[in-house]
């Protein structure tokens, strides 16, 4: 079963006194490179090089986030499937988390990007530290 947390995590319409509070779900972007675990490293690297991000995100067919793949790791093994090269379990945030909280965690963990997923782990988007300011 799901509950209020799940509703908020899917960025669905809400009512109340604090609905205008800025959340990471409202500032995230969905233009990050997504790839399947079986995609060739060389192909993914090419896509990443054409994007504004220094990494791509590996997802399953249903959009579940499987891992993060920095462009720098794709040069050495161009024929490898990215699923074998990805960093599993990157830090993620739910979309209803306040930008203030996300910015604080990014600073604390020395991260530049916030990866946003639903409570079930489906990738929604990415926000940079600059997006949160």
């Amino acid at each position, binding site marked *: 079963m799901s509950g209020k947390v799940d509703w*908020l995590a899917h960025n669905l319409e809400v009512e109340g006194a604090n609905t205008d509070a800025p959340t990471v779900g409202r500032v995230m972007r969905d233009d990050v490179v997504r790839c399947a675990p079986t995609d060739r490293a060389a192909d993914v690297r090419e896509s990443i090089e054409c994007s504004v991000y220094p990494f791509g995100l590996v997802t399953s067919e249903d959009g579940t986030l499987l891992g993060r793949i920095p462009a720098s790791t794709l040069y050495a093994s161009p024929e490898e499937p990215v699923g074998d090269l990805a960093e599993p379990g990157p830090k993620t945030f739910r979309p209803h988390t306040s930008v203030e909280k996300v910015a604080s965690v990014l600073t604390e963990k020395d991260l530049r990007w916030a990866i946003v997923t639903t409570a079930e782990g489906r990738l929604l988007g990415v926000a940079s530290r600059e997006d949160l300011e």
Partner: protein
Amino acid sequence: MATGIWLDRLRELIDQGAQVVEVLPADDYAPVHLPCALNLPLRELDEQAVTVLDRKRPIVVYCWDSL
């Protein structure tokens, strides 16, 4: 009879006119809640449900992590 449901079913029920009730305290309800949700905190639920809710329409009761 009460049954647990998932988000997709909740959206269907809302579209069909179900009554949605948040049973969390008012301090949790006021900042943000589901569209058109009523607030009947658990401690007041038994007392108010009979007068506030329509027995003829489906009723969805939710808290932070359960529907």
